């Protein structure tokens, strides 16, 4: 069943499996999701990002694998020879519908890509659980292991005030789906700074600095690599946040220009997002073989001088 494919200098075995009755051959080590993508199949994903090891936390990408009692997260499960996968059964569709509803009823997904389309596709109605509870200021003070017992009159959610504690970026955890990507980007997988972690337990889990101190008191070095990986708009340039607030953010009018960071000899790739001849934010191509979308504070936020034109 397995033959050898030569990719560059590496020899990787290939694996043959069946997805929705079609046979497909991919390299060993690929995930079910990537196999599906090579076949042109779309599987919804929310917590998955291409530069971070999958945490498979959202469970929207679940598929059926023959022989498995429960559904399997396609974003992280590696293909195996002879695997038989189904991507659109009653069970997978039900799970996707409910996951979209559970998240949609507890988190502000307004800036999360594709959600509106998937809600239609899977028939999700996040409002059917009931009336949303009012935003609270207390999520950072939750007691682990005990909560005020719900009376069912409203639907709990994570809505809360935006955290604005520095000039460069804001944290709007009402939009956070707890994909863990920012924590992994800040810590072990990229930045090695560990300014933020996951705190609390259960529905009270949250992304937090130690004791919820302001970022300015934390270890944060403002590399913005967490913003780069955040799939929901929970982490956002202050410039973008202010423009959205003012109603002047017009993504469709923006141009994106790739360039090289001028500050040091590393030469990271930058993508400048420009609206009305002003740089409104900076990202970096996540498929760049050296930097994988990561920058430092200078490349990420040091663009003001470009705009200091003589009046």
């Amino acid at each position, binding site marked *: 069943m397995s033959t050898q494919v030569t990719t560059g200098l590496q020899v990787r075995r290939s694996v043959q499996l069946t997805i929705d009755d079609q046979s497909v051959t991919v390299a060993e080590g690929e995930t079910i999701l990537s196999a599906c993508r090579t076949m042109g199949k779309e599987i919804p994903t929310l917590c998955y990002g291409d530069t971070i090891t999958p945490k498979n936390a*959202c*469970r929207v990408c679940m598929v059926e694998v023959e022989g498995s009692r429960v559904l399997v997260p396609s974003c992280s499960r590696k293909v195996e020879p002879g695997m038989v996968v189904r991507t659109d059964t009653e069970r997978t569709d039900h799970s996707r519908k409910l996951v979209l509803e559970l998240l949609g009823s507890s988190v502000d997904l307004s800036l999360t890509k594709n959600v509106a389309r998937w809600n239609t596709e899977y028939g999700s109605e996040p409002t059917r659980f009931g009336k949303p509870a009012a935003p609270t200021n207390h999520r950072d003070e939750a007691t682990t292991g005990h909560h005020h017992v719900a009376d*069912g*009159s409203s639907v709990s959610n994570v809505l809360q005030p935006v955290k604005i504690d520095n000039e460069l970026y804001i944290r709007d955890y009402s939009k956070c789906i707890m994909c863990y990507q920012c924590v992994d980007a800040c810590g072990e997988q990229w930045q090695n*700074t560990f300014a933020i972690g996951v705190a609390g337990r259960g529905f009270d889990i949250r992304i937090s600095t130690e*004791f919820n101190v302001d970022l300015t*008191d934390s270890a944060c070095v403002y590399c913005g690599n967490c913003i780069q990986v955040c799939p929901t708009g929970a982490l956002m340039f202050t410039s973008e946040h202010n423009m959205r607030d003012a109603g002047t953010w017009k993504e469709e009018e923006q141009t994106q220009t790739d360039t090289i960071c001028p500050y040091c000899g590393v030469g990271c790739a930058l993508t400048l997002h420009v609206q009305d001849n002003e740089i409104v934010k900076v990202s970096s191509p996540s498929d760049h073989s050296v930097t994988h979308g990561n920058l430092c504070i200078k490349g990420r936020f040091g663009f003001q001088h470009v705009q200091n034109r003589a009046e």
Partner: protein
Amino acid sequence: MDLKVNSSVATRDERDAVDSVLGKPTQYTQGGQRFEQDLRVSRAGEALRNLRHMLLPTLHAVNDRIGWISRGSINYIAQQLDIAPAEIYGVASFYALFSTTERTMRQVHVCIDLACRAMGGLREDQLPEGTHPSPCLGTCERAPAVLVIEAGNPARHEVLAPATPVQITALAKGAWPDAEATVVSATPQVATDSKNLVLLGRIGKVDPLSISDYQEHGGFDALRKAMQLGATGVIDEVNASGLVGRGGAAFQTGRKWGAVAGQPAFPHYAICNADESEPGTFKDRVIMEGDPFALVEAMIIASFATGCEQGFIYLRGEYPRAIRNVQNAIDESTKHGFLGANILGSGFNFALSIVRGAGAYICGEETAIFNSIEGYRGEPRNKPPFPVEVGVFGKPTLVNNVETLVNVLSIVKDGGAAYAALGTEGSKGRKLFCLSGAVAKPGVYEVEFGITLRQLIELGGGMRNGSTLQAILLGGAAGGFVGPSDLDLPLTMEATRAAGSSLGSGVVMVLDQSVDMVDQLRRIAAFFRDESCGQCVPCRVGTVRQEEIVSRLAKGVQAQDIELLRELGTVMRDASICGLGQTANSAIDSAINKLKVFAQ
């Protein structure tokens, strides 16, 4: 990593507590004294990071000493272990026995869980000032139960059960409970049926703190026999016995042992899962309190058979007497050459230690234990890879429940075939049941597989005076309810499975007519909401929605809410990462479908 700590400084007590686990810091960057050479060089990094598994014991030390975990102490631990404060905060805030806000030295944890509230215990909204609500304290046979913790040097921990509201108020005001009831009170069979008991055979007969008593009653005979049989011989006997895990998942023990033994990667680790937190479960506690050497001996045998040189007993933090007795058994066994280097001259080396849990049901999930031991948040890991291949510290790991392990002693001594001759075709051997609720003599009962629910209740003296049976919870909050018409159900794995329930961890909780079933369901829903680790959406949000819907149903039944619960149950079962989310709807579902709790 450049460690950045803010200006909060640990007090002398906090530093002392941390140092009691980690030793005094040797250099400035670790919070020690500053010398001139520190301006140029710092030795830390890799070596310190290898101490990450010391984080949980260190947090315990601080919490024990001052009652909570302050910013200053987190900063000091951060320096000592080279872990970022945000990470430590994430770990500390994961556990219910820790607090990251200041609180009194005295903590009174009042059980508000299923058995206790069924037996007249307080509900969360009835607790006196100065007490905290607690999930099941694993003392259900003496419900209602309270755990008192007094921070200090040393901290004191004591259980009071049963506890009246007056006593609870007194505890909150500073009273200290009398010594706990003896372990035998949890094993009523000892008085009438003692000669037929094997798993419970020594309880009440030996002093649980005395190794010579243990040896006079057959202690370490199984270990000697195991060493004669050799590792493969032991695994053969365990395979022949048909023993399956008693922790809830009923996996074949012999197969697991064989798989660990055969792993090429080394070292191998052995973990005893003694986190017993499934509401209604207390059998492991009774063994550890009453016959702790048996667990130590069984761990040595398991590790000998599977090639582990280091073992951990992950023991629930709410079990003070079990911790004391097992620690004593480890110390005594080490002193007498049963632990340590070259055990009984066999050339086999084995070190065993307790890792104390800190209040998290999820840490009983076998991969969550790994993260907890390693000093991370107790979140379950992805499977595959499975623990037998990639477990704690990334190495092949054996995880077994306390009762599973203790069964191995008689299997080794009397042979696997003799064990397999007991029980039924699908459920071999002996089983401990945790009988609680409205029976005359609640406690742990040891039986051969095959007896019915009715026979077990009769063994427990029948229903309590004045009680009529309303419902029975089998397998705990993750199990399911059955009704009075199911009394002839054989308590075997196959029969309970066929009846749409499960034996789980051996919970048989008998609820009489006085129990408000809707209240029980609300508590089950609240339990899962509290205990979900929060990692995956179906469980993190699903358990919240489930609680909201059950509360709504309590006020008035709507068909669409019943349907919503069913849909929720399906996604939790199908798409959750671990067994917690996968079973969080099962008891509620059985109450609705079998007992018709919300029938219109």
